[in-house]
């Protein structure tokens, strides 16, 4: 029997061990801090599996190597790294006010375009809001997920996925995804393995150390590679059984392998998740992707988007913990800022912009990227494809220019900092429950199971054009949803910046396009000064024909009755269209204004100098007369 005294000892010991393990986990490890040498350390290492066992390539049951054990047992602090920007998605203590690129759940057969973000950015929904479990999320978006966080944290998992996690294993942070500079490292293979739910094999399978075949998603719930009973129950001839063979030639006599990795992440590694491709809306013109001027100048992405061992990336904007200088914004390299003691400019050879003739008010109202980033403005907005939402770089990716989701780019919109900046934009579309004036999208699985059959949309025939349905069909679906217990309030359909409800068997809509759209800031590709907006003068923006203030943005709706509706660009800039048109119109008279003022100033100058000379003449005359009189 445990006495009161012994329970105190046990409790103290428990607290001590918890505190000790926490302190240990927070400590820097040998490889976390450099000694100042710029030399690239050679990583000749033994591989460890997730149980901490050394991997022997001759072992027929060798397990995939674990990055947590291989990279972090002795050298790097996995705990510190796992709190970094790419791995801290569900950390709700972090800033969420800034809208960033969401993971866009897109399903044309259910008319769904839902911006998802574990960070709960304003206007987006957490995958949990639509009951998308971490496993489902990874299956859909995991090819561009660097591991850790939702794929490791047990408390976040859904009970129904328990056995699947046992089969797939955890998706640890894949260091190689960013740090590998091996030409053999195959990120597309990593993506393919995520899609097969081969989570614990993905890093190994994409490396050069092993050959891997298999599909964990097709394994039964009780699949266990060590348990011969389950393995024997699977048809061994089928190629789907996970089968890992290490390449012996990659191992030395001590079973060590050479990791070709670097701290200076090559740009191509970033491009795997962060590529964008601008496409023309009329589909006939394919704009070539031009590289960022910084890249052309020889910079690496990580020169600006740098980090310490905590992997808290510089995002190029002012965020918590960074001032202008350390945040590595445009200004921190290109502009001298005495407030932040940034007395020097020209870091990385950055030219200091002259901005000759541009009134300073522009720099208060516009982000640098307005003039220097993205494709040149056109009256019609272009679509952009992104790695994460259009699965660029994966095997078998749909290369069509109008593949869903349709992301409109270069929308000049006022941000939370009240500066106009170029943004990408989507028009969310989803079935939702309006309960106590809060609109929550319905769970995606419910929508797939219940609403998809009602809509009867064929994704193949609608390809390229977002499907739209009749009002009567939407009324039918919304009426039907009232019979489901999952809908606690009023069933609504959100699409094209409107909320649709059924009243008296008619479709009513509430219009709020700015609130119901989702946009996020874009910064790249940066164009050189010679291609910046305004290089041709004020009329690049301030003219009646300029696409800066003029032109409309197409609102993509899922209703036939709402097709072809547009919204003025001014709406996103909090500007009056009439005012901007009139202001632009005044620039037609700008040369006259200049001429009149110059002429007036010239006349005033002539009169002034003329009378000044006359004044001098009078003074000298008066002095001369007085002196002469005095002498006489």
């Amino acid at each position, binding site marked *: 029997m445990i006495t009161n005294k012994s329970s105190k000892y046990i409790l103290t010991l428990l607290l001590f061990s918890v505190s000790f393990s926490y302190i240990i986990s927070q400590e820097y490890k040998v490889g976390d801090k450099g000694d100042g040498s710029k030399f690239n350390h050679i990583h000749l290492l033994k591989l460890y599996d997730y149980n901490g066992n050394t991997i022997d390539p001759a072992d027929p049951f060798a397990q995939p190597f674990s990055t947590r054990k291989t990279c972090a047992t002795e050298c790097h602090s996995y705990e510190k790294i796992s709190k970094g920007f790419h791995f801290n998605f569900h950390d709700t203590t972090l800033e969420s006010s800034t809208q960033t690129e969401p993971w866009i759940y897109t399903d044309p057969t259910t008319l769904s375009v839902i911006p998802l973000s574990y960070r709960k950015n304003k206007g987006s929904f957490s995958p949990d809001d639509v009951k998308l479990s971490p496993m489902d999320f990874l299956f859909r978006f995991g090819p561009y997920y660097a591991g850790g966080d939702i794929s490791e944290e047990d408390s976040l998992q859904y009970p129904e996925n328990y056995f699947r996690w046992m089969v797939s294993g955890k998706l640890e942070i894949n260091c190689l995804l960013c740090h590998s500079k091996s030409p053999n490292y195959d990120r597309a293979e990593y993506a393919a393995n995520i899609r097969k739910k081969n989570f614990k094999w993905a890093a190994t399978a994409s490396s050069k150390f092993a050959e891997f075949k298999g599909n964990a998603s097709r394994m039964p719930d009780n699949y266990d590679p060590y348990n011969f009973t389950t393995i024997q129950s699977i048809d061994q001839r089928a190629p789907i059984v996970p089968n890992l063979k290490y390449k012996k030639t990659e191992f030395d006599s001590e079973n060590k392998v050479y990791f070709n990795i670097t701290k200076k992440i090559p740009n191509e590694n970033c491009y795997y998740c962060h590529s964008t491709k601008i496409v023309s809306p009329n589909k006939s013109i394919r704009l070539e992707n031009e590289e960022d001027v910084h890249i052309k100048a020889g910079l690496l992405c990580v020169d600006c988007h740098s980090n310490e061992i905590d992997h808290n990336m510089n995002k190029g904007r002012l965020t918590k913990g960074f001032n202008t200088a350390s945040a590595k914004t445009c200004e921190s390299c290109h502009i001298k800022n005495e407030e932040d003691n940034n007395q020097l400019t020209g870091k990385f050879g950055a030219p200091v912009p002259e*901005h000759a003739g541009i009134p300073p008010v522009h720099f208060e109202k516009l982000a640098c990227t307005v003039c220097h980033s993205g494709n040149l403005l056109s009256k019609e907005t272009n679509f952009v494809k992104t790695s994460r939402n259009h699965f660029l770089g994966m095997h078998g990716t749909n290369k069509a220019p109008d593949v869903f989701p349709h992301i409109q780019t270069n929308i000049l919109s006022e941000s939370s900092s009240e500066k106009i900046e170029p943004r990408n934009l989507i028009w969310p579309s989803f079935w939702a429950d309006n309960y106590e004036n809060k609109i929550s999208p319905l769970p995606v699985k419910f929508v797939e199971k219940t609403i998809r059959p009602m809509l009867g949309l064929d994704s193949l025939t609608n390809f390229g054009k977002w499907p739209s349905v009749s009002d009567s069909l939407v009324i039918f679906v919304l009426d039907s949803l009232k019979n489901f217990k999952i809908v606690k309030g009023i069933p609504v359909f959100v699409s094209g910046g409107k909320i649709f409800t059924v009243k008296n068997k008619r479709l009513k809509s509430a219009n709020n396009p700015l609130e119901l759209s989702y946009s996020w800031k874009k910064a790249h590709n940066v164009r050189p000064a010679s291609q910046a907006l305004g290089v041709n003068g004020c009329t690049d923006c301030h003219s009646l024909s300029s696409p800066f203030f003029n032109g409309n943005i197409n609102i993509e709706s899922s209703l036939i009755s709402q097709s072809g509706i547009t919204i003025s660009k001014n709406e996103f800039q909090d500007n009056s269209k009439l005012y901007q048109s009139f202001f632009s119109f005044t620039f037609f008279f700008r040369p006259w204004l200049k001429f009149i003022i110059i002429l007036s100033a010239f006349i005033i*100058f002539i009169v002034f100098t003329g009378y000044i000379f006359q*004044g001098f003449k009078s003074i000298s005359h008066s002095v001369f007369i007085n002196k002469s009189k005095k002498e006489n």
Partner: protein
Amino acid sequence: MFRILSVILIVISFIWLLVFLSKQKISLNKIYDNYFLSFKNLFKEIKLLSSKDFPSKINWLKKFFYLATIFFFILMMLSAFINVIFIGDDLTGLLLLIHVTIAPLFSIFLAVTIILYAHSNSFNKNDISLDQKSLKINRSKLNSNGYLKLIFWLIVFFSLPTMISIILSMFPIFGTEGQEFLLNIHRYSTLIILLLFIFHIALVSSKSNKPVTVSK
């Protein structure tokens, strides 16, 4: 900085104006009425333009340009300083539009007014007396007419940097720092002109209790 300075200086000069006018037993209302009365009278005398009497024509034009310049000047000042003083923001939006639209009209009227009044505002012995020994201007002997002339020439002088600075900023010559410098020149010289204008109004009103006229 400019906002604080302009608020302080404008408030002080307005207080001075009110004190000065109260001593002269002139109300602001009276100045306002006189101004519009002068305009009204001017339009009654529009026939003078078609008369053969050249001095009368010139006199009519002088009054017209003077009053119109004041009108445009007040509009320019209101559009310029409302944002700066009350909102603390740069001149943007509708006020900028008004400011820029009136600017060419104002500059033309100002230039013509200066041409028309330059001769009558040239200094003479009645305005300035010289200290025979040191050749320095003896300020104590400068009368109100002399002060009016001095203010006139100071307005003329400061109108040059006001106009030149803003016009230079419209050309792709100066970078951001240069632009800010030019904008400051424009702002501060405008502020000086505004203060000089307040003094001008005070002196003109005290000089004549009749509808506002200028020295010939």
